């Protein structure tokens, strides 16, 4: 299993994602460079967090046009596993690989914290290792993580079970009070129809070591290994 982690100018969690994959999970992982359309034969792609191109127009807007993304889009359309975390999720939406968009948190404040998400779909390539309705503790750190989509889109997401993670409270209930950014239907992460592309605002790559606060994030990466 060979992983590729894309580095865009302004990516921050790219190094952390690589560390998570190669050092913590002992995977073969390589860095992919935004200017290089060659995917170097990777089997799975991670779009990391950070502020690609400064996120200066809209989060993820400028990244989607970088040379590597053309290849990533083809890779995804051919069924290749693609995981977008935080900024990576925003890029997937801007690139049209996932529906909807991520806008400014309702609070208008950046929020860095640990949250709970409930696994709503265990059939995506990144959630097969999770139990249905399992609660994962994951960190978030974003200013624009409020998921929005028009009614029909939202409806079809729900109807097709494309919602993968929802913000939940300690009891595992989908509680508005547990929603850190105002996302519609407490959506924290979604997948495409083929369930090979997953995007989420939380940072599973920052939840793989007990020393650093938790290991629930391992499940997403291990799903692909099992």
């Amino acid at each position: 299993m060979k992983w590729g982690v894309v580095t865009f100018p302004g990516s921050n969690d790219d190094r952390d994602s690589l560390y998570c994959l190669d050092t913590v999970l002992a995977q073969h992982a390589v860095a992919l460079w935004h200017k290089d359309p060659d995917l170097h034969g990777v089997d799975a792609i991670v779009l990391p967090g950070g502020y690609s191109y400064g996120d200066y127009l809209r989060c993820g807007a400028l990244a989607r046009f970088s040379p590597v993304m053309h290849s990533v889009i083809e890779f995804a359309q051919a069924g290749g596993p693609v995981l977008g975390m935080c900024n990576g999720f925003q890029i997937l939406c801007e690139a049209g690989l996932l529906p909807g968009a991520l806008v400014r948190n309702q609070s208008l404040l950046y929020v860095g914290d640990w949250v709970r998400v409930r696994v709503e779909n265990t059939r995506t390539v990144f959630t097969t290792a999770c139990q249905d309705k399992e609660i994962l503790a994951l960190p978030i750190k974003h200013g624009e993580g409020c998921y929005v989509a028009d009614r029909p889109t939202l409806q079809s997401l729900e109807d097709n079970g494309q919602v993968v993670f929802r913000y939940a409270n300690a009891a595992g209930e989908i509680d508005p009070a547990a929603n850190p950014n105002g996302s519609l239907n407490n959506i924290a992460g979604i997948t495409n129809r083929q369930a090979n592309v997953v995007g989420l605002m939380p940072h599973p790559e920052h939840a793989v070591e007990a020393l650093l606060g938790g290991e629930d994030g391992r499940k997403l990466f291990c799903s692909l290994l099992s």
Partner: protein
Amino acid sequence: MLLAKVYVTLKKAILDPQGKAIAASLHALDYAEVSEVRMGKYLEVRLQGVSPSQAEHRVEEMCQRLLANQVIEDFRFEIIQEERGTPQ
């Protein structure tokens, strides 16, 4: 030189917390007459060596491809002639 003034606004259906917050602050400052505030983007794009009609079509394309995200935003723009070196 040509100047394209591009206005990007949130679709009506998308709520606008920034606009809401600004309206609230204005009310706090006793501007009771304010009934609504919507927050958008205003971009000035300066163009060289293209005709106004080419510009029309190029800027339309820039907006569709990059400047606006049509899932959540609408855009409109106007193009004006600008005397050298006096961008306003």
